[in-house]
């Protein structure tokens, strides 16, 4: 086992052992929530951290998958596993359509369009009462249950979530170091150059969008099975914003960041629900404080700190300024 994999293995193993240590379902469920949130945050990180596309409608992916699986396995009467497969496929199909719209722009245009897309789906979930149950949502979503894997038990469900999280970490860990992953960051930093050396920037971004959608949908499936209930709130602006906060808090563009951020936000949210009722306001203040205190974001904030520490050691300073090198 390489040194890079070890810390992740340790963390996941520790999370998996929580049910063995604590009999309280509260902690088991808390860790499940963290795992599900982390899978979603890992998906959004493909867009925000690596593609440079700041989506404010990420919740549409888990939302679609959760509604699809809930509808298929309750109203549709299909068994949960088959429903899950159809839900994944359906979410990817709709996401591909959305990509045709969202990937027409970048920057703030992308923010606005992704937010609008998510709101449209949210509006459908909220208003199309005959199908979606409206504000009441769909309840009684069955978990897949097999004799081998009794998912109705919280600890077994947690292990499923952790297995999916491990899969996401391995897949994305490889992806970010792959030619396509490097090309994705290239398309973020220098799209013009990427075009000029023969890359199809649109298709690269499309691949990233679909990858984000896939992990978002996986998180949505687990969410629906975990709560056994879906409602429009999971696609509200606050839901998308929470995932964004996980990235910013943990560090966008890193592999471990979304995991750390998911843990922080889920813990904060659970604490907040105990002590104060105003989660939305707390979320708002957190955003404002982050921007005001760390105007470049948390990650560059720490990188800068590390840079200062490194500079305490003598090192040859590279020349960055043109026209100022000494001529021989």
């Amino acid at each position, binding site marked *: 086992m390489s040194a890079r994999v070890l810390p992740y293995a340790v963390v996941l193993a520790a999370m998996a052992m929580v049910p063995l240590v604590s009999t309280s379902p509260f902690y088991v469920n808390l860790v499940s929530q963290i795992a599900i949130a982390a899978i979603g945050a890992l998906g959004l990180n493909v867009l925000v951290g690596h593609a440079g596309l700041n989506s404010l409608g990420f919740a549409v992916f888990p939302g679609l998958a959760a509604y699809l699986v809930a509808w298929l396995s309750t109203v549709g009467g299909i068994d949960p596993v088959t429903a899950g497969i159809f839900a994944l496929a359906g979410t990817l199909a709709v996401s591909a359509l959305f990509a045709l719209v969202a990937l027409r722009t970048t920057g703030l245009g992308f923010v606005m369009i992704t937010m609008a897309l998510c709101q449209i789906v949210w509006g459908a979930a909220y208003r199309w009462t005959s199908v979606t149950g409206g504000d009441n949502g769909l309840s009684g979503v069955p978990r897949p249950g097999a004799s081998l894997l009794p998912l109705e038990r919280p600890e077994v469900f947690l292990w499923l979530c952790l297995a999916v999280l491990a899969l996401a970490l391995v897949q994305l860990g490889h992806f970010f170091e*792959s030619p396509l992953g490097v090309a994705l960051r290239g398309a973020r930093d220098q799209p013009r150059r990427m075009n000029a050396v023969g890359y199809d920037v649109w298709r690269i971004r499309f691949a990233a969008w679909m990858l984000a959608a896939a992990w978002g949908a996986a998180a949505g499936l687990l969410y629906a099975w975990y709560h056994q209930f879906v409602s429009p709130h999971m696609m509200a602006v606050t839901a998308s914003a929470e995932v964004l906060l996980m990235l910013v808090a943990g560090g966008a563009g890193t592999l471990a960041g979304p995991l750390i951020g998911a843990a922080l936000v889920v813990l904060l949210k659970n604490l907040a629900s105990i002590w104060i009722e105003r989660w939305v306001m707390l979320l708002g203040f957190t955003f404002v404080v982050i921007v005001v205190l760390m105007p470049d974001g948390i990650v560059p904030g720490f990188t800068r700190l590390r840079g200062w520490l490194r500079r305490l050691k003598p090192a040859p300073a590279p020349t*960055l300024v*043109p026209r100022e090198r000494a001529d021989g």
Partner: protein
Amino acid sequence: MAEPALSITGLTKQFGGLPAISDIRLDIMTGERHLLLGPNGAGKTTLFNLICGDLAPTAGSIRLFGNELVGLPPRKRTAFGLARTYQILTLFPHETICRNVMLALNGLRRGKWAAWSAFGSQKGLREEALAVLERVKLADYADRQVAQTAYGDRRRLEIAMALALSPRLLLLDEPLAGLSRDERVTVQDVLGEVPADVTVVLIEHDMDVALAFAERITLLHHGRVVTTGSRADIAADPRTKEVYLGA
């Protein structure tokens, strides 16, 4: 006479009704070293952007070895053997010098879509990148981060990114901009070693280097071709002075 490498006819580009390039006609032969000359705003870089596809022309045709380029996206033009450098450095700052070139090398290969294997593990890719870096005299710094690299070296990396595509037509937009005298000599050497069958079009304000390099020169002014000819023709042409002195 052979077919020209690059053949431009009737090329016009307007920005909101204002012409930036007007009815340009230009033939450049295979293997030619061609200099685009003209004051700021003459339309030199706009012409490059039209050739490589960053801008779409209002009218006209651009043919590269007989292939019509107008209407094709930049990446398809690259497949026809076109490569360019930018006046403003367009590099990947978070990667090493070598990985920059590897990224460029990958652009025309199918391996660029691989999403599981490691970027550096593709067979022979690194060796090829090092060979390109050798040509621009950067092989010694291959594993240095671009952000940590001196400006003069980055200028040469900019050229390496284009050379990596093994172009048949190379567009160089001010490859000497901001360089010291020593660095200019190095870049001059690098340009001198570009294979003779590669056609090179150059925008450069350093007249000593540019005139030593280019055999033919096109003088642009206000988006129009004033005259095209040999070094001696252009130097002797009274219009050259007119354009530059505004007389």
